[in-house]
Every structure is written in C-alpha cells, then in structure tokens.
C-alpha cells in the first residue's frame, strides 16, 4: 500500500530535476536569432527565417508575432540573450521608443526598410466595383462628421449616413456595412491614419484644427463610428474574406496580401481613382499604403550567430526584388534605387540617429 508515497516521491524528484535543469540552462548562450514584432511583417520575416534555416548551417530563427509596439518593448528591454535581436515594425520607430532603447543600453539600432504594405477596401467579386475617395471613406466610417446640411460651417454631428448613396449620389444605394480590424490591430491604426485622417484633411476647417489642438484633431479624424455600421471582425482577415463572399453588400478592410491570395473571391475598390496593385502601391500612387521595417540590435551582431546572414538574405534581390519570393507572399517591393540604398546601409550596419 505504499505506492502512493512512491509515486509522489518520484514525481517530486522529477520536478526537482526540471528546476535544476532550468538553473543550469539559463547560463547557456542562444544559438538562434530571436525576432519579435508586427504581425504584418511576420509573414515576410518568417519566410526569410525559413530560407535561412533550410540553407543548412544555421538554426531557423524564432519569429514572434507580438504587434509592433509589443515588439519594440521587448527589443528595447536591454542587451543580452533574453532580448530579441530584431524587431519587426509596420511603422517607423517612435522617438519615445528610441529613447527607451537608449536608456536600456540598446545604443546602436540599424533600421532596414523592406517594402510597402497596401491596405485595401475590398468587396465580393459579384458586387459592382466601388470607386471611393478618402473623403468618402472618412464620411462613411468616422464617428463625427461635418453636418451634411452645411459641410463647411464648422459644425460636427454624429455620423448620419446609413447608405453609400447618401454620401455621394453616384455610389450604390446599399447600406454601409464595413468589416474591419479591431483597435488592437496595427492595420486599423494605419488605416485610421492614412485613409480616415487623409479624408478628414480634405475639409479645410478641420485641417486648421491640427495647429490648434492636435489631440482633438486626431480624435475627430481617427475615431471610428460605433453604431454598428463598422463591424469589428477580429484579427483574422481570412474570416473577413469569407464574410464578404457571402454578403455582396459588405465591404472589408485588410492587408494587400489577403487580396492577392483571394483574388478569385474579392476585388479591391479604387481609392482616389487608383486601384490597389503592385505598381500603384510601389510607386506611392495608391494612397492607403505604409512602409514596413525591421530593426537590428547592433550589439548582438557577432554574438548571436546568423544575424548578418539574415540581413543579407532579406535584402537580397531574390528575396525582396521584383521577382523575389517575398513578392509571392504579398510584399510590395520598393523601387530599385531605394532597395539598393537600403541594402547598402544594412550591410554597413549604419546606426539610426534620432
């Protein structure tokens, strides 16, 4: 009848063994690259990581999808094996984040711009193609808009528009029904900044507000309506694609790579007269697009094996070039001279100054 005791002792020993292993383990150096950051850069970063691992010599880097802000928080935690070597970002590093890095001893940071990501306003293939301007997107989705009776009088009202036709007679007479990412998403931030704020600035008197009170201006321009016309659909863009397919009246907001992969089901609306495709996004004609970056901790180069190889692989023409494998995954490449410039700077590990 002693089995209960014996089992318990054995389990306790196992637990002790695990604890000891942990203490020994933490002195070990890390032999793989650790990357954290934006979920928008994640699909590209992981492909490069996998290529690096397949080439043989090096272990496959670990890529965490934490969001841009979360990535910088970890990255700027300090220097050492417990902090990531590379931060992925769907926007440039902010001044405060840079200062946090400096304070934690992360002095030299190398910025590498990798290309662009377009945010598309898409709808089912079976619907009549939409032709929008940023101003119309703002009027359809903002929480408060200029009074429709007198748009230049300087009076804001709660968004009264229920159908697209009410915004502009040439638009379809269907209910405004937009599926988009929640506020925690980087895509939502970028969309609010590029499309909503862009459209909002077409009203001169709101634009003038920017000088007076920047916070107030931001809240007017970037706040999204909450009366059910904008439907938060989670971070899962595949779900939005599925919903668009079953509801031709609905409009969805997501990254260009999802449009590219699902071109047989959904099509992108043109914004300010430009349809989203490689050329228009790469040249900057399509206005709702943003640059993507990764940041390298220079202090780790040489300590953690493979960082130079990762940078070289990412900035090679076979990866980020016009025919590269990242383009297959939906990255919009930079024009050739810009690529050359960034590849050279990355190779020299030119530190960022702010």
């Amino acid at each position, binding site marked *: 009848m002693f089995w209960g005791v014996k089992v318990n002792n054995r389990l306790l020993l196992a*637990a002790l063994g695990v604890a000891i292993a942990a203490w020994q383990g933490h002195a070990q150096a890390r032999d793989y690259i650790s990357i954290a950051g934006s979920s928008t850069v994640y699909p590209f970063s992981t492909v490069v990581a996998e290529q690096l691992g397949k080439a043989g010599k090096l272990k496959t880097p670990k890529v965490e999808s934490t969001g841009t802000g979360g990535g910088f928080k970890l990255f700027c935690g300090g220097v050492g094996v417990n902090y990531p070597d590379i931060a992925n970002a769907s926007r440039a590093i902010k001044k405060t984040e840079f200062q946090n890095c400096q304070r934690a001893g992360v002095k030299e940071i190398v910025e590498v711009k990798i290309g662009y990501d377009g945010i598309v306003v898409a709808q089912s293939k079976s619907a009549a193609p939409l032709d929008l301007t940023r101003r119309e997107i703002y009027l359809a989705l903002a929480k408060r808009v200029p009074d429709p009776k007198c748009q230049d009088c300087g009076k804001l009202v709660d968004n009264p528009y229920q159908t697209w036709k009410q915004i502009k007679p040439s638009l379809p007479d269907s209910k405004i029904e937009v599926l988009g990412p929640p506020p925690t998403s980087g895509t939502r931030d970028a969309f609010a900044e590029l499309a909503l704020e862009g459209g909002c600035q077409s009203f001169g008197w709101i634009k003038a507000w920017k000088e007076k009170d920047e916070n107030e201006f931001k809240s007017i321009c970037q706040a999204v309506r909450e009366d059910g016309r904008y439907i938060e659909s989670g971070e899962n863009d595949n779900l939005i694609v599925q919903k668009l397919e079953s509801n031709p009246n609905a409009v969805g907001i997501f990254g260009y790579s999802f449009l590219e992969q699902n071109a047989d089901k959904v099509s992108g609306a043109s914004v300010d007269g430009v349809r989203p495709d490689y050329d228009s996004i790469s040249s900057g004609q399509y206005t709702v697009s943003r640059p993507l970056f990764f940041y390298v901790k220079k202090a780790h180069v040489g300590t953690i094996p493979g960082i130079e190889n990762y940078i070289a692989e990412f900035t090679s023409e076979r990866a980020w070039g016009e025919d590269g494998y990242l383009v297959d995954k939906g990255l919009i490449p930079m024009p050739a001279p810009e690529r050359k410039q960034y590849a050279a700077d990355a190779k020299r590990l030119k530190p960022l100054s702010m």
Partner: protein
Amino acid sequence: MNDPPPIGGAPEMSRKSYETVRRGLAKRRAAERRFRCYGLSAILLGLTSLALLFASIVSNGYTAFRQTFVGLDIYFDAELIDPQGNRSPESLATGDYGGLVKRALSKVFPAVSSRSEKRALYSLVSTAAAIELQRRAVREPSLIGKTVKVWLPADDDVDMYVKGHIRRGAGESARRLNDRQLAWIDELIEQGNIEQRFNKTFFTAGDSREPEQAGIWGAAAGSFFTLVVTLALSFPIGIAAAIYLEEFAPKNRWTDLIEVNINNLAAVPSIVFGLLGLAVFINFFDLPRSSPLVGGLVLTFMTLPTIIIAARAAIKSVPPSIREAALGIGASSMQTVFHHVLPLAMPGMLTGAIIGMARALGESAPLLMIGMVAFIVDIPHSVMDPATVLPVQVYLWADSPERGFVERTSAAIIVLLAFLITMNALAVYLRSRFERRW
C-alpha cells in the same frame, strides 16, 4: 358548508383535498411535460451546435490529410548532384536537386522555352521537392545515374486547384494559377501523373510558411513538453496541498482564507498568469523566452487550483469510518492517509488532474506573454528549446493569407480535439474503473 367540519370528519377532509388535487392534476402534469420538453430541447440545441461545429471543422479540414503529388521521371544526374564525384553524403549535400526537378519538368513539356513560362512551369512543384530528392540520394546512392519515377509534393496552389478550392471560372488575373499552368496540370492529370496521397508531412514536420510543407509535429512536441512540466509540478504540489488542507490543517480563519483564495484563483482569467510568468520566470529568474519550461510553469499556476479542488473533493468523499478503523488499530495519522485515504481518493484525484491537463492543453492566451506565439520551424527536443503549442499553431495558421492554410487550420483543430477527447475519455474511464461507492 361554512360550518366547521364536525369532529371525526376525516373522510370529508380527505375527499375535499382529493378534489383539490384532482382539479390541479392536469395542470401539474402539463407543467411536468413542459419542463421535460425544455430540458430535451436544451440538450437538442447543445447537440445540434456541437454537431454543426464538428461538421464544419471536419468538412473544412479532412482534405488536409491528403496532399497532391506530381509523379516525375527523375534522372539522378551525377554531374548535378555529386559535384565532388565521390558519392559521399557531404558531396551529395551540396548538389543542385532543384535542377533535377526542372529538367524532368522540361522533359514532360518540351515546348516551354521562354524564361517567364519556365518559371511558371517550375513553380508547379513544391520547393520541398529538392530536399526530398537530396534525402533520397543520400539514403540510396545506387540511384545515381538512373532514371526513377518519384512522387514529389505539388505546390500549394496546385494542391488547392486539384482539391477544387480554386475556381476555374474566374478570369486569369483573379487566379493564383494562369491558364497555361492549368493546361499543364490537366495534362499531368490525364497522364496519371498527379495523385492525391496521404499527407505524411502534416504529421511529421514543424511549421512552415509553405502550406504543403507545414506540419503539426513541432507544435505537438511543444504541447507534450509543456504538459510534462505542468503535470510534474502541479500534480504532486496539488495533492500535497489538498492532503494537508483536508487531513492535517486546523480549521481556523487562516485555512478559510486559503480556501477562498484557491477557489478564487480557479476563476482568474488565464492571461493574468501569463503576465505573472513574464514578470517572475523570464524577467526575474532569466529563464529563456518561448521555452516549454516557462510555458509549463505558467500553466502549473493555472491548473493547480483545479487539481487542489478536485483532490480535496476526492479526499472528502472517503468515509470517516475508514480513517477511524485505521486509527483504531494503531496506525499513525500519516499511515492512515497514505495507506488508506490516498489510494481510495486516487481515482478522483487523477480525474481532476486529467481535466486540468486538458484545460492546459487547450490554453493559448497566457502563452502569448511568454513568447510561445511564435514561428518555430525546428522541432523542440527538450523543455529548453523554443516551442509553440497546438492551440497557438491553430491561431497562427488561421491568420495566414495562403489558401492552403484554411484546411490545415481545421485539420489542426481536429488533431487538438482528438487529444482532448482522448484525455477526457481517459478521465471517465478511470473514474468508472476505480471509483468505489459507499
């Protein structure tokens, strides 16, 4: 009638109450029928939604267990794959196996000549084909110099087309495959050189960004190591705590406070444990991020309350007569507990532990904070290697743009559900097999 009932009017009373009962009987029976209907419909509703869930997951996911393969006559050309000419594994490792595939494809479609067309043709076969050929050549060097028919994995776009997930009707610009590629695929199908076979990669590989090369083995191994750590810590600690609290601790305000706290902990949102794990294990103890060790420690916090509560209930259900008998013939308190109470309570404790483990297996929120929501290709071999777990793999695939990951997401859910059902079935079996009723 208003007169008070005469003394000895019992028959009169009983007739009256009989009348009352009879009048209300139909109503009461109807109420009972209604109540049964409510219960039945509640169960039906639950079963229907469960059936719907299973049906949608299985119908989306079953195709992922098969993968499209292209049969090609590969000539193992020594010139291409054995640069040093000595057939050693080192020399074979540096060969150009992609070249073999390209040559074989060009042989099937000799008319293809322009650069862009060749690119389109070569993209029909997965980039994993080269690695597969290399492994084959190293394993069987006798193949070198011979032509063998080899079945190689097709690219995910081809796979999706063959499985019917890409519509032919849409215009060329709206498809991932152009008209020429579709014509080539049709020709290969006609020749009998495209086949769907069991998708072994899915069960043996780690994560990948190419759907046809992605597997769940890496995540399953991560889940295994995480659960081993969780079980090794939470089971002994949980049972020790339960025994002490039930059998030895005095009943006072302190033990009441502890009991309230344990019950409270069971209801704390799991993300909180993740934050705690980040602060304590990673930032303070310097344990490596993304490791199953830290994951297991965090999940231990989460499952401990469940195990303690279940173990205490199991100990409580052992009748006091057993303890009194043992003490009566001279056993010490510890002997009573370890010789009699614990063995009798063990089935209940195991059930609690398995249900706690099943919950830990399905948990993903607390692992976000400690870096286990990550792209990890290499399969973990110890509790210190970076790893991810099954539910996180489901989440990462669900968020991937490639069409091929839609079915793989559902397939991964099927695997996760299979594990959960097995564990819960084991709990039910243990309970019915070993439980003693008094």
